[in-house]
């Protein structure tokens, strides 16, 4: 992913735009992958507010968004922040798991400490280049702090969309999962009648 499309900066731009006249629908046409964040921002803007987090500070949202995008970067499928993982984290820590907020705070503090160790004048993890971010993450990838951030990122990317991550089921689409109440056989390749006839000759006997 190129630094030019760094979603942190782009979201800041969105928020600035949303404060004036732009609609999220229009924004979506200029930068579709950011639709999730834009929607959140749009909801806030329509109420005359900056996007508000219930559990995260603005800096935490930026740092967590940056690390989430290194854990699940954008490829031909959306990256973590594209599908609303930051809003998921905020939702998680405000509703399901408020008790884990101190642990989350510590994890981000550890992340920023590692960032400053790597780049002494770094303001925060979010301010590093993606390469510097990856190098920082490699230095902490076996720690509890990293595991927590990884766990929240993955949960947000693949959770039921009602929790504000996995927008438009983009995470599910990326892996070929479909949430349905009903399936019929054959379920995959190997249980198709002609394939079974070939692979399991004893069934004909």
């Amino acid at each position, binding site marked *: 992913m190129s630094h030019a499309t760094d979603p942190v900066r782009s979201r800041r731009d969105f928020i600035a735009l949303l404060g004036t006249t732009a609609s999220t629908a229009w924004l979506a046409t200029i930068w579709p992958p950011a639709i999730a964040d834009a929607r959140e921002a749009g909801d806030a803007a329509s109420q005359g507010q900056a996007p508000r987090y219930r559990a995260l500070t603005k800096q935490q949202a930026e740092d967590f968004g940056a690390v989430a995008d290194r854990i699940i970067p954008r*490829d031909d499928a959306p990256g973590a922040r594209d599908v609303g993982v930051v809003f998921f984290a905020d939702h998680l820590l405000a509703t399901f798991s408020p008790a884990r907020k101190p642990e989350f705070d510590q994890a981000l503090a550890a992340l920023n400490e590692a960032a400053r160790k790597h780049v002494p004048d770094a303001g925060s993890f979010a301010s590093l280049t993606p390469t510097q971010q990856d190098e920082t993450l490699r230095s902490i990838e076996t720690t509890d702090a990293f595991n927590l951030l990884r766990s929240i990122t993955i949960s947000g990317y693949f959770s039921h969309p009602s929790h504000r991550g996995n927008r438009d089921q983009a995470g599910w689409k990326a892996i070929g999962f479909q*949430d349905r109440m009903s399936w019929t056989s054959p*379920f995959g390749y190997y249980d198709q009648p002609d394939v079974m006839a070939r692979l399991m000759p004893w069934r004909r006997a």
Partner: protein
Amino acid sequence: MTRDVRQAPAVRYAPTDDVDFVIVGAGAAGGVVARELARSGFRVLVLEQGPYLRESDFKHDELLVGEGHQLTNIPSLQPQTFRATADDKATRRDYLIYGRMVGGGSVHFTANYWRLHEEDFIERTRYGSVPGAALEDWPIRYAELEPYYSRAEWELGVSGIAGANPFDPPRSRPYPLPPLPIKPSGVLMEIGARKLGWHPAPAPLAIISKSYRGRSGCQHCGFCESFGCEWKAKSSTLATMIPEAERTGRCEIRPNSYVRRIQTDSRGRVTGVVYFDAQKREVMQRAKAVVVCANGAETPRLLLMSASNQFPNGLANSSGVVGKHLMFNGGAFAGALFEHEVNGYKSVQVSRYVQDHYRLDPKHGIVGGGGIDMRFDWYPISFAMEALPTDAPRWGADFKKMVREYFTRTAYALAHTTQLPQEASTITLDPELKDAWGLPAIRTTFTEHPNDMKLYQFFLERNLELLNAAGATRTWAFSIDAPWQVHLLGTCRMGNDPKSSVVDKFHRAHDVPNLFIVDGSSFVTCGTGQPTMTIQALAFRAAEAIAGFAKRGEIRG
């Protein structure tokens, strides 16, 4: 939580009503006992610590059942501690997972429904004394339980083919329902197992393949393990026994009722129970007899919390074995990547299994054995978190690429095995930590017997062999050092000798004539694999015996 008003309980008992039976726990066992006793004409009150959820409360939402603990014990309210041995200081660790709702673990289980075999009941006779293990024969034999295995299959609704598994023990009736359709993982299992000379068979499941007794058949949505079934196709007690118990007009299911103590009188007879209601108010409910069906952890905990001057070591614990011999079943797990789409996320988790290694050849020098199934029991979050090979990248572009390539093309082999009973593996009351009601937390003390680890290693190798024979393009093993924390068994073992067991062969406490204990805690050995069917067969048998005692005036002693 929503309640369907059309299913409102038909009867309400007052705390002062001296009901015939209070049943503690509305799970796999409690639901069966409640239905059987209510249908026998008794007035039954079931106290369940968890909520009364309906099918409309169930969602395909990993966060809700995981982080949200919708269907299971809630660590923030009921914290636990763990230590490996009694010499260690226990530390905060939520080690055990169990169903905490009306229907209990039968709501969220995978629904593998295996009978034990004849030799599971006589392992002491078979193996003799095994150093470090408290191996004993059961006080009952397979033949005595067989009619109740068949009853469980027909009353609850189980799908399978009698005789398809050549190692299956004798049975008096066929399965009531044909097996569910074979899945891609089942096809691969048949290919691999047959190549190895094993005998794969359709897995018996407590999930109905067709309409049965007013419920519609499985729709293959794939959310069985860890989830509740929106279709009522999983034959949980919530979908089967509980509504039938309520329809008698004699059974009240009282959810959000957390029993803290079983009361006894000066004669040592049970007089009722004290529980916290939904508002955390203490209520004394009178009863002529109590049946504890609270699971292999909560049952011994409740007995230990019910200590009194008369029962200083805990109720029904003159033997000192309440809480001892904790077992979970063992296991081993391996994964594999295949060339084409497996799509394991569709339909039930398991469609084929083998029991060729149910009792290992003595040449291996390992006690016990196990069965193996091929399955896919991941959902998108858990898959990305844990399902990839242990040496796979854990984050970044390569990680994401791998999750995307592997999700639809993997299948897993899971062995379910013996685990030996040991006196030192226990459920006790934590001396310091309290739960949200001020009650002592569950403290688990557990270390595997060396035999167990040898068994897991043996089965890990078989799993890999199977996956390779099935044509995997890549296989990987998961650590055998992470023990299971479900299947809570053995902590109030049954036996003929009051000095070494808690209940007799009809589940009556040796020390207290009007106290019965029916759940996984009754197991003497853990058996070779899946315990739920045996818990429920024992429940049918116990309920019949208890009803007989009550009718003959033999309860109060």
